């Protein structure tokens, strides 16, 4: 079930984050018009998937999570068939299938029957099948499932390439945060069918960070003492030369500036400490669940 879900997919690669059962696959199926939306409104490529699902599916590509193939066909036939199903003429579909299979690294195996493909090859084939008709938007549902570390890296490089060099916008659903961190510019965080965050990945990581890095020109220890007196929790990092200032919910960043001014110190650097996507995600989900 999805509740009050509202977001826009930005150009580039958008990560759809959420724990298992958060509603990621349900959301993608809704965007494909495979599940009804009552009530609500979705627009994919300026079309409503509920009203015109076939046109929507024509303009998007979808790489499902599960292992799907048509038995008895080789990679080229399957990929070309996917193109034809999307509306390409047979000659175009075959020509593009050759091209996209080389692109995903299956050029040498394209005449082999899909039944004999390894898991990694099938993942690549699914990506090729979703790309063959040149979609404007690509939905990837857990594309690195079942891949070994090198296969995962190669898949992520392909996704990065598609999103940033081929002008195909990607909605990348995964619960593997490292994959999202490596490829996505934007994130949509889902939990229990609700959107917890939608925006740029950096913004998400910074938003979830309640720690500031502060550097003053001179008088680091005085600044630390001043901040502690003002009620902040402060850690002095000797090696980096900056102070780590943890903000509680009711403390505001202006108080740091005021402390420096009162002490007559000059702030050279003040920025939110970068947290990993995993830390930011866990925090957002915890807050979302408790809130």
């Amino acid at each position, binding site marked *: 079930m999805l509740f009050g879900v509202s977001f826009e997919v930005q150009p580039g690669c958008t990560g759809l984050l959420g724990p298992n059962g958060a509603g990621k696959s349900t959301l993608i199926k809704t965007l494909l018009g495979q599940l009804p939306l009552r009530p609500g409104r979705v627009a994919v490529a300026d079309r409503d998937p509920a009203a015109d*699902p076939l*046109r929507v*599916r024509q303009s998007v590509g979808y790489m499902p999570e599960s292992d799907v193939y048509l038995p008895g066909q080789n990679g080229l036939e399957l990929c070309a068939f996917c193109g034809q199903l999307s509306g390409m003429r047979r000659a*175009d579909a075959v020509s593009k299938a050759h091209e996209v299979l*080389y692109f995903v690294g299956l050029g040498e195996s394209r005449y082999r029957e899909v039944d004999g493909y390894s898991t990694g090859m099938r993942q690549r084939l699914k990506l090729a099948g979703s790309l063959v008709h040149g*979609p404007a938007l690509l939905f990837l549902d857990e594309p690195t499932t079942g891949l070994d570390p090198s296969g995962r890296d190669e898949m992520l490089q392909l996704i990065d390439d598609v999103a940033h060099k081929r002008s195909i916008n990607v909605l990348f659903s995964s619960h593997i945060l490292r994959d999202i961190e490596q490829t996505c510019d934007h994130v949509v965080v889902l939990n229990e069918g609700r959107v917890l965050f939608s925006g740029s990945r950096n913004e998400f990581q910074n938003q979830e960070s309640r720690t500031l890095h502060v550097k003053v020109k001179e008088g680091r220890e005085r600044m630390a003492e001043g901040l502690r007196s003002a009620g902040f929790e402060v850690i002095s990092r000797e090696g980096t030369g900056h102070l780590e200032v943890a903000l509680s919910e009711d403390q505001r960043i202006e108080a740091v500036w005021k402390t420096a001014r009162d002490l007559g110190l000059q702030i050279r650097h003040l920025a939110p400490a970068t947290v990993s996507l995993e830390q930011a995600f866990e925090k957002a989900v915890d807050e979302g669940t408790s809130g």
Partner: protein
Amino acid sequence: MSHDDARIYDQSYRPFAGDLASPRSRFLIIAANELRQAWKSKWFKRIAWFSFGPLIVFAVLVVVAARFAALGGQMEDVWMPFWGIQMFFAMLMVFFIGRGAVGEDLRTGALTVYFSRPVSFMQYLAGKWLAVAVGVLGVTLVPGVVLAIFRWLAEPDTGLLDFLLWLGSLLLISGLAALCMGWVILAVSALSGRARAAGIVWVVLFFVSFGIGEGLAEATGIYELNALGFGQASEQLARGLLGGGGTLGEVFWFSLGQLGWALLGLVVVLFKLRRWMRV
């Protein structure tokens, strides 16, 4: 330099920028793909060619019958035995085209391949059925029409109206056979899951229904019970409509028998694919 550093990526892929056809005719693509896959089997090709063998034999028989009739003799009508043989070929064609049509899609998750693309549920079903129907019509209607033309030319007493009636009857009988066999094999395929199992069940069902229909008809004396066997029903229809040896009531019952099988098959297919019906 490590192996990874030396990896060469093909950068030639560019997203397709041409026009995409309207989604209305996807069933034709599905049907063509099914036939293309069946054509890969050497046995399918052989049977397709062999299915035109009886046409040559019966063409000779038509000439012999015409000469014999000119001499005052009378021969058994050729339509019913011809149709019986062609129905056997139709059963084999259906075996190759339809045995994995739905079941293999269910087993391998291929339905996701179809329904994440601009293909509606009805187009999917229509495409799967059409592939089987083309196979059935290819070995029944096509040689039937050729034989009708040959007979019309060989028999000077046959008028244009008779010829047109033959064509209409051929269209009806082969259409009913395609409807019935198409939906039954799709149902068998959907229930069996694997192509091999579905193929065996299909052949058994064809002969068992034939035997049950004929056995019951003989035991009870109710001739119309032959309609229980879908191969037999089609053969009896050929006798009734083409050979002029049946009553209107018999034609009705044999048509109804085949429509009943088709409806049963359709209901089973819809039941097995019910979760995809909304897409």
